[in-house]
């Protein structure tokens, strides 16, 4: 086994773990991953900043709403507006108290049933603004 290489290859699984705990990868998490895998902190940083899904604003419920073409054609932007307004989402994309965060994402592979969103690991499809708000209301 290429011990060193495979050890360094753990950087992404480690970052994903840190992100799923905190929502985004904190700088202290980066340092501890670097120490654990004995690679430079900058190397971990470079990887962490490359993948947008590792810097989703932390919140109890992370909403990812698809904005790619098939969902865009089904007016996903209206859903985005409704959620932002109804949940008083701030500029950083987070609702008061950190209950919800919302990010617009690229295609989620649900284009046949769009507009689509994921809340944490669960997907929701055929959304309309009212339906999306109801789903989120139930999570409050």
């Amino acid at each position: 086994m290429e011990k060193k290489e495979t050890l360094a290859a753990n950087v992404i699984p480690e970052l994903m773990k840190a992100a799923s705990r905190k929502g985004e990868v904190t700088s202290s998490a980066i340092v501890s991953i670097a120490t654990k895998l004995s690679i430079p902190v900058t190397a971990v940083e470079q990887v962490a900043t490359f993948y947008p899904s590792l810097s989703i604003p932390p919140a109890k419920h992370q909403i990812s709403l698809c904005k790619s073409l098939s969902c865009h054609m089904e007016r996903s932007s209206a859903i985005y507006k409704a959620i932002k307004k109804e949940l008083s989402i701030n500029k950083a994309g987070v609702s008061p108290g950190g209950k919800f965060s919302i990010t617009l994402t690229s295609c989620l592979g649900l284009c046949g049933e769009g507009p689509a969103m994921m809340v944490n690991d669960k997907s929701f499809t055929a959304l309309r603004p009212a339906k999306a708000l109801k789903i989120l209301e139930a999570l409050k």
Partner: protein
Amino acid sequence: MSSMSPADNLALEKALAIKPEEIIDEITESGLRGLGGAGFPVGRKWRTVREARSDKKFVICNAEEGEPGTFKDRYLIENFPEMVIEGVLIAMHAVGAKQSYIYLRREYGKGYESLKKAVRGFPPGLIKKFGSPEVTLWKGPGGYICGEESALIESISGRRAEPQSRPPYPTEAGLFGHPTLINNVETLANVPLIFNMGAEKYRESFKKIFCVSGDVKKRGIYKAAPGVTLRELVFNHADGMKSAKRFKLALVGGVSGRVFSSDDLDLKLDYELFGNGAIIVLDESRSLRDTILNIAEFFAEESCGKCAPCRQGTSRFEAILKRKYKNKDGSKDMEVLKLLSTVMKDTSLCGLGRTATNVFDDIVKKFGQEVLMTS
């Protein structure tokens, strides 16, 4: 097919009964080609990895489905995970790999669970006969570029998912420098079928998965033999247009694919034309400028930024389409966009930059640039 029963492992038993070389012959005989969009003959790719000299080889199943309009890998993984795993196991046996990865995007958590269950469901005795290969389900952070073979390898290696120039090809020096076979989910899911029914029968009955979305009545997954026309897919399978508005165009192969106008409805969709099988249908009420802008935004965001033509090209493209055109009719901006498109096509390092403006080019060619000039 979705539940495990002894009969379901027939393909594995059959593959085990013959030599790896014979497996590859069978695959070649079946005519199977890469179904992720490239259309490369699968048998030939397997043979290259088989013949590569190395004490270690890898198989990677590419499940980083990211092309807008594509949802077949999600469908296959969630509903037929056993077939995907069987395909991986047969591929490993054929090329001589002891380790494999299934590279899944982060959003495919449900698929991850079904694959995990499927892996556990195989009879241990059978797996042992395969030499107890290691199948790692690798949940990646995702991103369109991670679907590019060399970027995907970078990502598993723990680096930024930046495409690498070739040669060497992954089949020669891939993951951790070893020969690596990378096949798409749909490609691998077809492999057990070849052994279940035999190469010849498979060849005759092969069906490609098409993902139809947009302005049709019934969006969804449809299976059809290559050579099917867009008219059949849109008006028969998907039951026609959603409203009284007429068909305007379809993006075949997703947002990096090609534009089919109503003149092209009867073209036979073969490997050269169907791309990955994604079909996004637009009716006559759709603004083409808005469509082009949405696509430009997508590529500006998904460009990995490694090479200048794509990094700057995609972001300038987006910026121009987003603002008001400079002169009243937009003709000056249109010239800049066309130039950018040519430069990106000719000089980008990987497929993302080279295909980002396909839809723009085709719309200009088929509908005239005027359709994009008025906002």
